């Protein structure tokens, strides 16, 4: 499944191994530090975003949230959210129908 080849390319660009398992990707991506992680894989709109925003709101400015999700509507949604509200999207990547996103609280 080739949802978004551009993101897959970026995935490679940040040095992540092309593993089949998103979890192992995460474990090995130690260079991207985060302060809090939420796993919303398998949940549907609006849950992934609702939980992410709730977690982000509870964090301090400059802290990084790591989100694991599968809802296909959500990846682009995170990009729009970051661009329009000033919370920074540090990295987003796609792997085997799952996505991971790093967001920094503004």
């Amino acid at each position, binding site marked *: *499944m*080739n*949802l*978004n*080849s*551009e993101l*897959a*390319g970026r995935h490679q660009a940040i040095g992540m191994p092309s593993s089949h398992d998103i979890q192992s990707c995460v474990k090995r991506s130690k260079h991207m530090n985060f302060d809090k992680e939420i796993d919303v*894989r*398998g*949940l*549907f*709109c*609006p*849950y992934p*975003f*609702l*939980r992410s*925003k*709730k977690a982000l*709101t509870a964090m301090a400015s400059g802290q990084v949230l790591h989100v694991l999700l*599968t809802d*296909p*509507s959500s990846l*682009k*949604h995170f990009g*729009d*959210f970051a661009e*329009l*509200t*000033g919370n920074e999207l540090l990295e987003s990547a796609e792997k085997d*129908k799952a996505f991971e996103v790093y967001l920094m609280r503004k």
Partner: protein
Amino acid sequence: VNASAESGPSWLAGFKADYETIFVEGWSPYLGSVLLVVVILGLMISGLFWGIFGGLKLWGDWLNSAIGLGPALGLPETLEGPLLHRMSLMNITLLLGAFCAALLSRQFQINRPPKLEYIWAALGGCFMGLGATLAGGCNTGGFLTAAIHSSPSGWAMWAGLLLGAAIGLKLLLWTLEHIEWGMQAPPTLNMPASLVSIYPLLGLGVVLGIIAWAAGWYYSGNEKLAVRGIIIVAGFAMGFIMHRSRLCFARAFREPFMTAEGEMTKAVILGLAIAIPLASLLFQSKVIDPYIAIPATFWVGSLLGGVAFGIGMVFAGGCASGSLWRMAEGHLKLWVAVFFFAWTGSVASGLLKQAGLIVKEVTIEEIEETRLGYQAYFPVMFDGWGWALFASAAILLLWYALVRYNESTEKFTLL
């Protein structure tokens, strides 16, 4: 970067890259909204309009007749066939358009949500069915199409939808903190790779089938079928566009309260800003009668219906149109939502009609009236198009200003 573009002869790579851009990568919601307006205006030029609830209600009527509730709900003995009923046909072809887009992008996937989400989908569907009955239409017929037809009933439902989305979000947040049960996601169903690899071919098959069906009816020599040929193409186009741009009215109403992000909201505002003045030209040149798509629900029905519908769409995770295209992408949650939406819509319509609330009467001004409101039309209320267009523009501008201000300040978020 693009594995599929690297195989095969080199001249093929350019075509494959274009295929990815058009059929695989998501479109901007602004493009989606503008294209949707083009289809809506095309329908209007053909003397038609876009609505979804009427078709869903027909499906619910069939179900209620089958299980013996027909007489109790006052349903007619013979119901129109789902393929001939105009809105039902538009829903079916919208589903096919979104299904086709999902196949071409290789994004079709049977998705099962956690157990609790099925319950919220059913509950949300029921609220949407009730809301659409009260407002005389869903987010399309009750809000979008009514607003395009310069009716304040669209804006009364808009106010209700905003309030309903806010209430729904608050309720959903409460459940998030108090209900632990049933939020464990089931394992993902993997579609066989051999099947996924022929998705684009299947998608092409759907396109060819639609063309053959539409052309067959359009050139059938039967006036009734010819009109339905246009509906087939329009419904298909709308489903395709909505899937490609992931157009979502639920997101447009909910998101400013949730994350403050207003991309989808602004896309809907842009679409209306284009559609309303162009539609007014069609009404002024008498290409179409505006009243055919104005519900007799201003303002009580529109407002209350909007609130109920707004709560429902937040719980279901999709409005009427959004639920349909997500159904076609394989999300079982939205199958449940649409089932209950259609069923409750039929039940609520039957009961409210028998209670006398939504029985239409024609007034001396030759407009329809129910106990929940009347067919309100800005140009009649303001005695001309100047103030009528000004009223719509003012609301759109206010909506845009609030959403844009909120994006920077998060003043209206409820989290």
